[in-house]
């Protein structure tokens, strides 16, 4: 388990234990945290699980695979700290990760 904190657009903070090996997207969906649509189910094909990663975590994350940046072009208000949460696999290194969920996904 790793603690992941999701800040939603309504200024609420949700800290949940997410099983290692699941993605940050799955952690949100399974805990009913609003704002992550994940329409394609985690296939890096839709950009509706877009999150902003807290700056200090950016370089601790796995590198973007080919295609993630292409999908982020489609995301709602992408920024430099944008990631697709379906591509972030929870591990011990990510214990304590904080992400902000955008106001909407499309």
């Amino acid at each position, binding site marked *: 388990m790793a603690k992941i904190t999701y800040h939603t657009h309504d200024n609420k903070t949700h800290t949940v234990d997410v099983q290692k090996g699941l993605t940050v997207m799955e952690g949100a969906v399974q805990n009913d945290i609003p704002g992550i*649509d994940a*329409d*394609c*189910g985690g*296939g890096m*094909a*839709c*950009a*509706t699980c877009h999150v902003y990663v807290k700056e200090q975590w950016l370089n601790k994350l796995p590198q973007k695979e080919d295609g993630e*940046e*292409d999908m982020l*072009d*489609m995301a*709602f*208000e*992408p920024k*430099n700290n944008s990631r697709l949460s379906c591509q972030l696999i929870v591990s011990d290194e990510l214990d304590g990760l904080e992400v902000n969920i955008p106001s909407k*996904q*499309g």
Partner: protein
Amino acid sequence: MNKTDVLIIGAGPTGLFCAHQLGIIGLSCEIVDNLDKAGGQCIELYPDKPIYDIPAVPECTGEELTNNLLQQIKPFNFKFYLNERVEELKKNQNRWNVKTSGGVEFDVAAIVIAGGVGSFEPRKFPVKECEKFEGNSLFYSIKDKSIFKDKTISIFGGGDSALDWAIELSNSSKVNLIHRRDGFSGAEASVQKVKELNDQGKLNLYTKFQMDSVMGDKKIESVKIKHDEGEIKEIKSDYVLGFFGLIMQLGPILNWGLNLNKKTVEVNTENFETSVNGIFAIGDICSYPGKLKLILSGFHEGALAARGCFKYAKPDEKLRFEFTTTSKAAQERLGVKK
């Protein structure tokens, strides 16, 4: 009014295979889809990406899968209504009257919603004022390119649509292409072409910029774009085009009185009927305990929903279970020549 047994909403793999199953058991159907071609997410999101988990097909692309499914239902000659979104359902005694966005009307015994995650709509600019100009000087698709002649056009996006239109419109318009990063997702040849045109001064490329705001009274006069580092530029623009791909919206399905669970429709697993008699839901749009969003699950759901439709389409007949290997009736429907 088009009278048929079943209306299928959505021409993705699940909808297409359900049509096949309806044809095999001797029912007629017509198929409506909001996109301009069949295939759904397979064609719209990943036409060239290989799929590895279709039973007995070790590897095929979304496009190949779609073509094979279309081939498989060809003998039935079912009619497709593309570029149409189903807007209204009305119960009429034991049947349903259905109306689409383009005014096409159907009179059917049952409805199968195979709508994926809803209908595809263009993704829009996050900037609020853009709504005001939508359809007059701001567009997400191009219907008539002649209006852009000799005008200044600001195109946003980094995929093939943005690149292709930037290249094409640069022949007869002043084009600004604005993209949020240096890399592009479009074809490499188009990226090279855009860079050449930029070097020759035939197009202005702004990378690491995104829209900040749009200005204008009735029509757009200029747009402000903001660099990653904070610099803001104002560029004169008669038209703004945004190409950010498509997003799926549940749309009018929300208003049909079905039991919903987030963005999905609840069904039973016996025949995939929804909480409303005569309306079935299959594929990614349906939910039930244990639901897997796989194409193969959609096929199974479609086969059962087709049989569920039978009692509404032919209430006085009994459906017998048959195999296509031995059923004369099924083979006749498929046009098998012996």
